[in-house]
């Protein structure tokens, strides 16, 4: 049986054994005077049987499917003739994919080398053997597990506790997925980065002032020297983020203050959701807006006053990114300002301060830690933002602080290096992971600091 039909079989077997187990518990209960003499409700005996029958088989299947492919391909590779042994790993991968294509019928056997055709038959044979073994083992395990549950069932058995223990373990597993995800992120960027740092020294990567990731494909090629200094990328990222913050912080903060302190319920009811629309717009739409509307506009205005503006200026990307971040800052600041106790406001007003003086001298300082935390979160979001800069910022790395020039960012480089086909042995591809590592570390640091600041502040007035 193929894997999907095996899964369907497992489900059906589970349902069957649920009814069998339930029935058995009812029979047992009859002998001792009714279901109330059972330890658990009949439902739990049924679920227990179903779990006994399906769970071990399911676990085995998952393990089997995770490990059968590498083992099979190793066996096939070992069976290849002499002249195919001891080749480089890239050639080996190519060979294996060729064999798989022949086996799947994509490549015709007539036009392929006989040794490969033999290997592909070997592959198909091994595949069908493992599939048969898996089917047999699954069938045996389901029936054994179900039979065991049926056989060992007694009225005193604590079926509910067992079932709930399994459920709880499942819940814990789901909750721990967050840790595995973080671990996966860390492992994926760290491993590839380590391989990158074998080719390019880490000091050159961290402090180099040149970025041109074109490596030579052949030894005699001209112009592909490859320079991997990430300083211009980070300055570009910071420049665009800075422009975004210059737009977003005043606009977001002032609108939050107005909405929280001055606006009546009607204006608040309309303006707040209207601003939140900005948060729901996909970044690719902002990118399109930046590239096709804002950038030409900035360029036109710039040339109008006699400045040379690049058509992919940092200013356009930064402006649009700022617009995107306005609702983020305004809703965070709104929360923080509303959390400032009313007594502080009343005290200040009672002393004769005007409303704006109260906001500036009392509420703002009281809310400052929370606002700073929110701004830090916004900065981390600006640094990690990808689509706007991919579509509206430049490709060429340049070390400049002029917002009218084209700059490139870390995320742009990651995206351009990894879109399309990659070869995982060239520093060009691996450098994207090193950049990813830096991006992950920087945003992680910002997030941790920001979350701590916000948390500490919240506790202050609770």
């Amino acid at each position, binding site marked *: 049986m193929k894997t999907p039909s095996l899964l369907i079989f497992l489900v059906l077997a589970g349902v069957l054994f649920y009814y069998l187990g339930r029935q058995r518990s009812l029979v047992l209960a009859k002998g001792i005077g009714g279901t109330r003499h059972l330890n658990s409700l009949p439902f739990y005996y049924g679920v227990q049987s179903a779990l006994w029958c399906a769970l071990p088989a399911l676990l085995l299947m998952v393990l089997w499917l995770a490990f059968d492919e590498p083992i099979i391909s190793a066996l096939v590779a070992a069976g290849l003739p002499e002249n195919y042994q001891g080749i480089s790993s890239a050639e080996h991968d190519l060979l294996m994919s060729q064999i798989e294509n022949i086996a799947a019928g994509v490549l015709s056997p007539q036009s392929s080398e006989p040794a490969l055709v033999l290997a592909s038959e070997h592959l198909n044979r091994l595949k069908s053997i493992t599939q048969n073994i898996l089917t047999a083992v699954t069938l045996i395990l389901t029936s054994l597990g179900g039979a065991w549950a049926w056989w060992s069932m007694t009225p005193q058995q604590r079926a509910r506790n067992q079932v709930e223990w399994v459920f709880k373990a499942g819940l814990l597993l789901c909750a721990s997925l967050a840790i595995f995800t973080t671990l996966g992120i860390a492992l*994926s960027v760290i491993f590839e980065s380590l391989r990158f740092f074998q080719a390019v020294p880490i000091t050159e990567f961290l402090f180099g002032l040149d970025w041109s990731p074109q490596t030579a494909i052949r030894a005699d090629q001209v112009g592909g020297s490859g320079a991997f200094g990430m300083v211009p990328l980070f300055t570009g990222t910071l420049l665009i983020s800075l422009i975004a913050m210059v737009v977003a912080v005043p606009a977001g903060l002032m609108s939050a203050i107005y909405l929280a302190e001055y606006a009546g319920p009607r204006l608040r009811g309309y303006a707040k959701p209207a*601003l939140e629309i900005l948060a729901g717009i996909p970044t690719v739409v902002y990118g399109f807006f930046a590239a096709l509307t804002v950038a030409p506009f900035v360029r036109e205005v710039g040339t109008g006053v006699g400045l040379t503006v690049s058509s992919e200026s940092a200013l356009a990307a930064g402006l649009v990114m700022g617009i995107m971040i306005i609702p983020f800052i305004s809703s965070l600041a709104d929360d923080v300002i509303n959390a400032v106790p009313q007594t502080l406001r009343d005290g200040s007003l009672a002393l004769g301060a005007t409303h704006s003086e109260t906001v500036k001298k009392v509420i703002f300082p009281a809310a400052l830690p929370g606002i700073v935390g929110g701004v830090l979160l916004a900065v981390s979001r600006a640094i990690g933002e990808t689509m706007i800069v991919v579509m509206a910022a430049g490709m060429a790395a340049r070390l400049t602080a002029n917002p009218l020039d084209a700059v490139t960012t870390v995320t742009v480089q990651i995206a351009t290096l*990894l879109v399309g086909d990659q070869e995982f042995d060239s520093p060009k591809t691996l450098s994207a992971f090193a950049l990813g590592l830096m991006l992950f570390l920087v945003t992680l640091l910002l997030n941790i600091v920001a979350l701590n600041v916000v948390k500490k502040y919240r506790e202050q007035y609770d």
Partner: protein
Amino acid sequence: MTEPNNNTAIIQRSLARRYRAEKRFRLYGLLGIAFGLLCVVTLFYDIVSKGHGAFRQTYVKLEINYDAELLGIGDISDARQLAAADYPALVTQALSQRLGSVSGRKARRELKRLMSDSAGYELQSRLKARPALLGASESLWLLADDDIDTYYKSLDASGQGFTGRVTERQQAWIKDLIATDDIRLQFNWVFFRNGDSREPEQAGIGGAAMGSLLTLLITFFLSFPIGVAAAVYLEEFAPKNRWTDFIEVNINNLAAVPSIIFGLLGLAILINFFHVPRSVPVIGGLVLTLMTLPTIIISSRAAIKSVPPSIREAAIGIGASPMQVVLQHVLPLAMPGMLTGSIIGMAQALGETAPLLMIGMVAFIVDIPQGFTDPATVLPVQIFLWSDSPERAFVEKTSAAIMVLLTFLISMNALAVAMRRRLERRW
């Protein structure tokens, strides 16, 4: 020493200044809001004004004569002959009949370029469906080329328009067609039905929308159960220990990790290590699941928290186990809130582009995906791909695709808000 009277005087004098500062401050606040709202309006106006035209496409009415000789079909029952026949020749013949025959290769090429390539395929499928048409003639509205479409749409009252690649000879022909009402705009079904294409007039969002649907289905059916389970564990069962704290820290951080990092994860772990195929909805769904999980967990926890403790205590009081309390009482009551949160999470996933670029969902895919393992792309990625295309007609298509995407997003968010209003229970 100043007397009390003097103090009052000082305050009196400063009052005007302070009131001015107050007014200024309020104005700044209003300006902040106005700027935000202006951005919303500008953005929507810009997209709609660029994209509304794409919902109608230019068609030209032609008298097609299914000439067996010109087609090169001797035997209508032979499928091979039917497939290999020269249908574009029919279109060219009909054009020269309508607009007067032209001489010279350049002029002939310009004549051919009036119509889309798809006109030929349209004739082929018509003939296949009704073989009796061979030798007969019928008048048909056929799809015009994208350059013609752009020109025709941009024509103003005085007959001036964006010429682009449209030659003067072609402009004259179009004027001729306009004079007899043989050119018109029709609702653009092609845009909603077709997959991607290099020819703007044949390109559609059907494939991308299907890809988005398949990807979102996987995302929902993975992230909703897992997210709810994680939230239940953290809110109801988690002991206060280091492991739990560590889980919490991780969830909060994952919610703020840049989305492109999830693309790196998908590439390095799922594709290179677990050999999940590229470009298919399965891998897109997996990556988006990992990305939306924190959002769903956080909103599900809020929903569980809002169930009052009295419900739990009552259930425990009549002998329910903690698991029974959660499964039979807390979860049903928290379900509306959880669903609302996950709809918002799905809306986020629907608009996400960056991580999908890394895992090969940027491929140029003409066919509409039929299953979870067919190569596919999604709406935002389609928008990204089209926005890079040089043809002017693609600007219109891109904006129209954005309008469709925004419509989906807004309706999802509106649904979430409506559900919250309807189902929210105040205890």
